[in-house]
């Protein structure tokens, strides 16, 4: 098929860039239920996927959407859905099924204001914790938070790579502002894009949940001669339900450990002017762009401020924050304190919080005020 990757420079919205990232990553199945502010992802893929031999399915709802992409993945195709808060909530049960069945897939959540249907067309960052704790039970999430259309493209590819590598669902935690703003996006030539594909078993048949030494099992594909049973029940290496404390200890512990063991490889962050900083701002997504300006404004006022921008929000980068634990911290996000909990836990002290209810991003001055407050507080 031609035009798999549209190499070149484009002026794209974050949503459109995420869709192109999916195509570049080799996504061949999109199943979704359009919802603002993520609808442009679906719109673009409805046009693009048929051009590259892929399938676009508009599902009856979000429950069906995530079930379809899990199934497509077992059929050997890279798959994705895109949604926003209300749909993300509906997907939570089968998000857990994806974890329990170790199914690589990508969920793009373009966050809007909530709870409930909240602000359909306006910004929120309320699903930071939901990406990690929204589905019941025990698992380690992987979630990425782009701040620009370029990163929506890059991080969607990265999300597919991480999903394939670690054999589990990965969330691209976008937000309405990043999804709807337009900026230049460079789509590199195909040979410059790193693509990771899932490990395939060397033997047929191969037990679907038999891990290698890295704790990640190769993934047998339906129709290639394997005997596959994937269930949400706790199971053994063959996928047979095994409802015992011992099996739970063995299986779920491995699910957690396969991510924890590789957390350093997965974590990704950017440090801006942290070298000499007295105050460190922690932010992600669109809020990081407000913070970039705020730390410059702070420096103009004589306060040495820096930014740690979370590119991967889960696993949470405790270590990097602990490196600066003697500094003063400010956390800015469009919710009432979610990353804040993780930051304070990492640095083992209070941080100054600059939250918003949603609807619009922080004005740089709002974060500046937080920086000044942190700087002037007695430590």
């Amino acid at each position, binding site marked *: 098929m031609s035009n798999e990757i549209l190499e070149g*420079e*484009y*002026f794209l919205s974050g949503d459109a860039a995420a869709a192109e990232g999916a195509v570049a990553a080799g996504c061949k199945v999109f199943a979704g239920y359009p919802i603002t502010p993520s609808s442009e992802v679906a719109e673009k893929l409805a046009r693009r996927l048929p051009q590259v031999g892929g399938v676009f399915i508009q599902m009856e709802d979000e429950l069906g959407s995530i079930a379809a992409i899990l199934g497509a993945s077992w059929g050997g195709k890279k798959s994705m859905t895109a949604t926003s808060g209300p749909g993300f909530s509906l997907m939570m049960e089968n998000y857990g099924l994806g974890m329990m069945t170790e199914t690589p897939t990508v969920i793009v959540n373009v966050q809007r204001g909530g709870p409930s249907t909240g602000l*359909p*067309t306006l910004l929120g960052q309320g699903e930071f914790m939901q990406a990690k704790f929204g589905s019941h039970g025990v698992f380690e999430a992987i979630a990425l938070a782009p701040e620009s259309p370029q990163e929506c493209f890059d991080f969607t590819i990265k999300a597919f790579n991480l999903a394939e590598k670690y054999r589990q669902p990965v969330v691209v935690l976008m937000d309405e*502002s990043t999804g*709807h*703003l*337009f*900026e*230049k996006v460079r789509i590199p030539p195909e040979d410059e894009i790193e693509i990771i594909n899932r490990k395939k078993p060397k033997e047929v048949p191969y037990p679907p949940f038999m891990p290698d030494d890295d704790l990640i099992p190769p993934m047998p594909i339906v129709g290639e001669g394997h005997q596959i049973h994937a269930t949400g029940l706790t199971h053994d290496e063959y996928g047979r339900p095994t409802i015992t404390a011992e099996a739970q200890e063995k299986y779920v512990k491995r699910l957690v450990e396969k991510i924890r063991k590789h957390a350093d490889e997965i974590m990704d962050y950017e440090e801006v002017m942290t070298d000499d900083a007295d105050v460190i701002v922690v932010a992600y997504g*669109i809020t990081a*762009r*407000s913070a*970039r*300006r705020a730390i*410059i404004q702070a420096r103009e006022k004589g306060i040495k401020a820096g930014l740690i921008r979370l590119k991967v929000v889960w696993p949470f980068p405790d270590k990097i924050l602990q490196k600066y634990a003697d500094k003063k911290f400010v956390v800015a996000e469009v919710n009432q304190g979610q990353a804040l909990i993780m930051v304070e836990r990492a640095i083992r002290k209070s941080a100054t919080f600059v939250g918003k209810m949603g609807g619009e*991003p922080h*004005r*740089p001055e709002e974060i500046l005020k937080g920086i000044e407050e942190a700087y002037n507080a007695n430590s």
Partner: protein
Amino acid sequence: MARIEMQIGGFGGQGVILAGLVIARALSLYDGREAVFTQAYGPEARGGASASGIVVDDERVDYPYPLHPEILVLMSQEAMTTYLPNMRKGGILIIEENLVHLDGEPDVSELHKIPATKIAEELGNKIVTNIVMVGFIAKVVGDRIGLKKESIKKSVLEMVPAKVRELNEKAFEMGYNYEEA
């Protein structure tokens, strides 16, 4: 050129979103500038207040929204009420003269007026009002934001449907060559 903020306000259906998009796209893809385009609109398909935001810089744009635009384009009375108070003092104001009636003298360094809707109607279709305005904007502030005529024209022609390309080209030229009274 440091950071420059620009805003185009009007009502839904006038094409202010496309107007902003073609300008930002030209700056970004063809004029080597860093540019971000954002939009603000109500839930209505037509008739509600609507605005395009463009932030241009030499370096990568950090905060992507206009805070106090130094270039403001107004295409409706409601847009004036909403966006004029937020404009940077001493900036450049461009208005659709038949749709915007200023109360008193605004605190601006330059005030430019164009009957963009009337010009579009004379061309045969009111739908190109926005592109008449884009031509006029390119003429008035092009040099100051690093926007070249050929770039913006290319951007416009690439972004409109093929069957109305000629009409849009005419509309652009009418706006670009408009002589203010």
